[in-house]
């Protein structure tokens, strides 16, 4: 392993060798090496096989974009070998290989290319049977085409998210970005500079004659207290109002910047000729990165294709590194390398005018064809032009245009607070780039109201030479790759236009050009040129496809961060656990499902139901939504919100609340207790209270009634004591409330004290039994609960859970909003006409309910019961269909076994004409069996309400 001597190799620590394995073979590199650089130093240039034709591929850009450098790590697929640093013992394998990298069994695919034109998939894999694609072709192709392998046993990692704020975010830490950031920070702005590479400097870290400028910028940057530099940080998108995701390792920084300067640089472009994808053919910047970052000699005998001054600089660099220069080839007609060319000539380098039409070699470059002659070489370096890094600017609304004179894409930005500077702005020389950055920084400073000066626009003496427009013609034998990720050749694009595709977005989807990991970074310009020529349009008209976030691949972990499912606990949470409750989440709330050992769940739930029916039970109803509606207009407000009338409701009385939306659909229910002329305590269903509260505020923002609404759901806890012996329990409480039959009638409400706790007591319930519901401020809940349990000792009061509560409510035929109702349910469909005021001039939904009533009743919720054994499958479960003439007309909304009645009971929507009691309806069980049952009322148990009103 030989490396170039320092100062080549700025990123490697030659004192720290690092060993790792690639394809099972041990390699040694240095700390700071990336996988590709340490392999190249060991003369291992092939990294992968290509996507479609399984051609040998190696590094081309050293900038982490093309699919060719993606490798597999044990727990991470698709890792960029030219950006991922090696570590001791790292196991790296090649991707997209059948067999081994050196001897890929699918390499014959290369010879079949002419049988696989673009659109091949769409045409070929349609038959022979209807589902052939899904069953046969797709799995086969996926296996052949697959990139890395996901390790589902990967170890857990934490992913973090944080918010960041700054006056100015500078994206890109090259000459432009650093200069702009320093200028702004020196004037007092709070600046963040984000650089995706491990060091700052951008092209200055590898470009010839750049170290003085870089040293100067580094020194100035260190002296700026308000400049935060974040390296290894990817800015992966631009979103409205300058909101940008910065990703560093496992952490996502959601960054809000007042101003943004995009100094994202430019992407060097490859040339187009036959076999331009052979290992050993690379961009000028890639050769420079190998030498200056890693001290790796990119080859022994080189040809340089130079269509701009940078090409000549690379040639000089190669000479300095001891690479033999076979020739410099300048494709520009009358092209001149100026002083740089003279310097090369003085060193005896041959400079040819002409073009490269092909390359030869099996697994590595062996020669290139220039002006019809083969020149032996193992390295071809291409410097033929670049495109501005357009992705982030275009996401932010920049327009890409084509400058015919300079053969390049230009970006024009919309208005501030966004700026571009440096080579992304079409500039090339150090002077021009830094001057442009100072201009951008001072424009930002002016808008930030910080000290600034006016900087004139810059002229770049080099920009005119930076790009070269080649004539791209398809090689008769092909393999002139435009998009290496997708194995797209010149003729593929030309053929797509012959198929009639003109629009780039469609050509992209038909050919898949630009759809690989590099997302058009190295293909967009050539594609535009080919398509423009083939469709007789200008390149500006052809354009590029829409750039969308993310800029580079990101992991799902980064997007997800920590997972925090909402969790709310009632005041009695620990008390329930102490009593052995099986706690389960219901929305955000944790509630007792039943009390006791899981193994006995069914028996315990039955016993809890039985306790309520025969003795007394207590349920924690604290999760019930609680609202206080108060003010002189409180009654009028409730009149408009709910379907019943509340203005004349006496203080100390409860009234049912049914809420409909403007379509007349039932959306919530509850109970309102009037505590004073101007104060109602209203319950809402657990899941809906947040929405009900917001809706109430919304309506009153429009009505402007003199009323205040407060959500007291968490502030109040509640316990429902229910069962034939419930009165014995409450009468045993130490209380100033008269709980007697005479003193506290059904649907009445009282305020008082229980065990020193302020309590709101209501005779309401959900079980159909004699019920008292006691509400209190949550800080007193434990005291109240303990008092209730103490008072209940004499009758063996039993706490019961949610499942028993569901059974009890269904036995009594009480509906659950959201379970027994859907987005269309009207009060009439529930048989709740009694709850809809006919005299009120207005309530939300009134008009719609009337209109729907005039249209007849399409369906109605009814009760159904089935005398099958408890575990029978021949019973319709929730969501089973109700059929009429074999056509679905409704469905089962609730279905449970009633331990009280010893049969299956259900609520279901049936056709409106079938809703009379006794009408036979047909249901389809989950097992497909059809079943007939007569329509019943909702209440299966105590339909005459003899038990709850005693």
């Amino acid at each position, binding site marked *: 392993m030989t490396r170039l001597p320092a100062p080549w190799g700025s990123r490697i620590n030659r004192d720290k060798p690092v060993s790792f394995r690639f394809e099972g073979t041990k390699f040694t590199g240095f700390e700071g090496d990336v996988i590709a650089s340490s392999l190249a130093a060991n003369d291992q240039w092939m990294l992968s096989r290509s996507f479609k034709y399984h051609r040998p591929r190696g590094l081309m850009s050293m900038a982490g974009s093309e699919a060719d450098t993606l490798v597999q790590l044990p727990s991470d697929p698709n890792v960029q070998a030219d950006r991922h640093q090696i570590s001791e013992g790292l196991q790296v394998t090649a991707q997209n290989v059948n067999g081994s990298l050196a001897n890929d069994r699918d390499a014959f695919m290369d010879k079949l290319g002419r049988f696989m034109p673009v659109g091949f998939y769409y045409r070929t894999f349609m038959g022979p049977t209807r589902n052939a694609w899904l069953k046969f072709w797709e799995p086969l192709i996926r296996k052949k085409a697959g990139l890395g392998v996901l390790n589902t046993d990967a170890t857990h990692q*934490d992913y*973090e*998210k*944080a*918010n*960041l*704020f700054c006056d100015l975010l500078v994206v890109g830490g090259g000459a432009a970005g650093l200069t702009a950031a320093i200028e702004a920070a020196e004037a007092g702005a*709070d600046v963040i500079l984000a650089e995706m590479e491990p060091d700052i400097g951008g092209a200055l870290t590898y470009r010839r004659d750049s170290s003085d400028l870089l040293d100067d910028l580094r020194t100035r940057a260190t002296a700026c207290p308000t400049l935060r530099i974040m390296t290894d940080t990817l800015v992966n998108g631009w979103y409205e109002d300058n909101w940008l995701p910065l990703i560093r390792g496992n*952490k996502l920084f*959601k960054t*809000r910047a007042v101003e943004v300067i995009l100094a994202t640089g430019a992407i060097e472009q490859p040339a187009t000729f036959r076999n331009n994808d052979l290992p050993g053919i690379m961009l000028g910047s890639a050769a420079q990165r190998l030498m200056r970052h890693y001290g790796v000699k990119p080859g022994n005998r080189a040809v340089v294709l130079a269509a701009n001054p940078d090409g000549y600089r690379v040639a000089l660099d190669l000479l300095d590194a001891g690479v033999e220069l076979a020739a410099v080839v300048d494709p520009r007609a009358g092209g001149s390398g100026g002083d740089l060319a003279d310097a090369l000539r003085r060193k005896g380098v041959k400079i040819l005018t002409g073009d490269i039409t092909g390359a030869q070699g099996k697994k590595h470059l062996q020669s290139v064809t220039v002006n019809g002659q083969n020149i032996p070489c193992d390295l071809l370096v291409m410097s033929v032009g670049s495109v501005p890094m357009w992705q982030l600017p275009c996401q932010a609304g920049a327009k890409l245009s084509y400058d015919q004179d300079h053969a390049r894409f230009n970006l024009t930005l919309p208005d501030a607070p966004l700026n571009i500077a440096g080579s992304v702005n079409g500039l090339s020389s150090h002077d021009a780039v830094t001057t442009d950055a100072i201009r951008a920084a001072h424009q930002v400073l002016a808008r930030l109201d910080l000290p600034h000066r006016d900087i004139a626009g810059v002229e770049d003496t080099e920009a005119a030479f930076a790009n070269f427009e080649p004539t791209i013609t398809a090689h008769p034998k092909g393999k002139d790759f435009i998009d290496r990720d997708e194995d797209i050749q010149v003729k593929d694009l030309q053929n797509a236009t012959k198929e009639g595709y003109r629009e780039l977005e469609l050509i992209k989807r038909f050919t898949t050009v630009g759809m690989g990991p590099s997302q058009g970074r190295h293909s967009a310009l050539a594609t535009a040129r080919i398509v423009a020529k083939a469709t007789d349009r200008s390149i500006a008209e052809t354009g590029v496809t829409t750039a969308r976030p993310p800029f580079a691949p990101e992991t799902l972990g980064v997007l997800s961060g*920590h997972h*925090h499912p*909402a*969790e*709310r*606990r*009632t*005041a*009695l*949470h*620990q*008390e329930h656990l102490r009593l052995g409750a099986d706690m389960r989440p219901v929305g*955000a*709330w944790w509630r007792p499902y039943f009390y006791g050992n899981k193994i006995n769940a069914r028996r315990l739930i039955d016993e809890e139901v039985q306790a309520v029916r025969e003795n007394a039970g207590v349920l924690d109803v604290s999760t019930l939504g609680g609202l*206080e509606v*108060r*003010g002189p207009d409180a009654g009028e407000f409730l009149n408009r919100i709910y379907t019943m009338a509340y203005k004349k409701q006496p203080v100390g009385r409860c009234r049912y609340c049914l809420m409909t939306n403007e379509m007349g659909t039932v959306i919530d229910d509850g109970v309102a207790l009037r505590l004073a002329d*101007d*104060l109602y305590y209203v319950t809402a269903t657990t899941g809906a209270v947040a929405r009900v509260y917001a809706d109430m505020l919304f309506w009153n923002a429009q009505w402007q009634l*003199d009323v*205040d609404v*407060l*959500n*007291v*759901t*968490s*502030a*109040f806890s509640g316990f429902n004591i229910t069962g034939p012996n419930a009165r014995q329990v409450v009468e045993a409480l130490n209380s100033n409330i008269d709980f007697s039959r005479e003193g506290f009638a059904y649907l009445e409400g009282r305020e008082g004290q229980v065990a020193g706790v302020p309590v709101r007591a209501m005779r309401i319930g959900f079980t159909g039994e004699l019920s008292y519901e006691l509400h209190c*401020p*949550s*800080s*007193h*809940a*434990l*005291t109240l609960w303990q008092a209730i349990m103490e008072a209940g000792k004499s009758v063996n009061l039993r706490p019961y859970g949610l499942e028993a509560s569901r059974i009890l409510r269904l036995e009594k035929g009480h509906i659950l909003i959201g379970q027994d109702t859907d987005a269309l349910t009207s009060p009439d469909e529930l048989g709740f006409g009694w709850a809809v005021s006919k005299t009120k001039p207005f309530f939300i939904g009134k008009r719609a309910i009337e209109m729907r009533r005039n249209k007849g009743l399409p369906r109605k919720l009814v009760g159904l019961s089935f005398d099958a054994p408890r575990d029978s499958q021949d019973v319709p479960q929730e969501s089973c269909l109700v059929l009429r003439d074999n056509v679905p007309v409704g469905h089962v909304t609730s279905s449970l076994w009633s331990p009280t009645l010893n049969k299956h009971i259900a609520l279901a929507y049936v056709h409106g004409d079938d809703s009379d009691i006794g009408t036979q309806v047909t249901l389809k069980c989950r097992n497909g069996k059809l079943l007939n049952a007569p329509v019943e009322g909702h209440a299966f148990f105590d339909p005459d309400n003899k038990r709850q009103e005693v």
Partner: protein
Amino acid sequence: MKTFPLSPGGAADNVTLIDDVITLTDLTPLPRFGLKGRGSAAWLQAQGRPLPQINQIASGVLRLGREDLVVVEAADDLRAAWHAAPAPKGYNAWREETWAWMHLSGQHLGDVLAKICPVDLSPAAFKDNQIAQTRVGYLEAIIWRHTFEGREGFSVFFDIAATAFFANAVTTAAREFSEG
């Protein structure tokens, strides 16, 4: 006897509040009295209490809206006076029952808050005694730059039923700073 979530037997009494790179202190049992609805501001002012601008605090009075105020100094006296007073006097906002009250302080205060609150809470952007009604720890919350017992930091008011959730969210957010 009152039981708060972190009291013995309370809903979150098995939760340990973090006290290393960041310190979470439960202030839920401290007195506070909220008034809301028409008449609240006038009544409070008539009691000689200051009436700050919305989203500001003055002498222990937090103003969250035109008629939405929370008093955290001498709150119990005020509550007694309010119960005895005739209307109009606004309505009880039950802030001692609806909200948990926690204080955050410590070495990594800024780092942790940047992870759990979307508002810029840096000293330059968010001054002492400033209030923001926003999200903290994935919950709707009120955050107030507040020095408690000499510890610079923030007080946060949020749904009392989410006490355990909030404490766990803060602990998780702080974890990356305590490791390594």
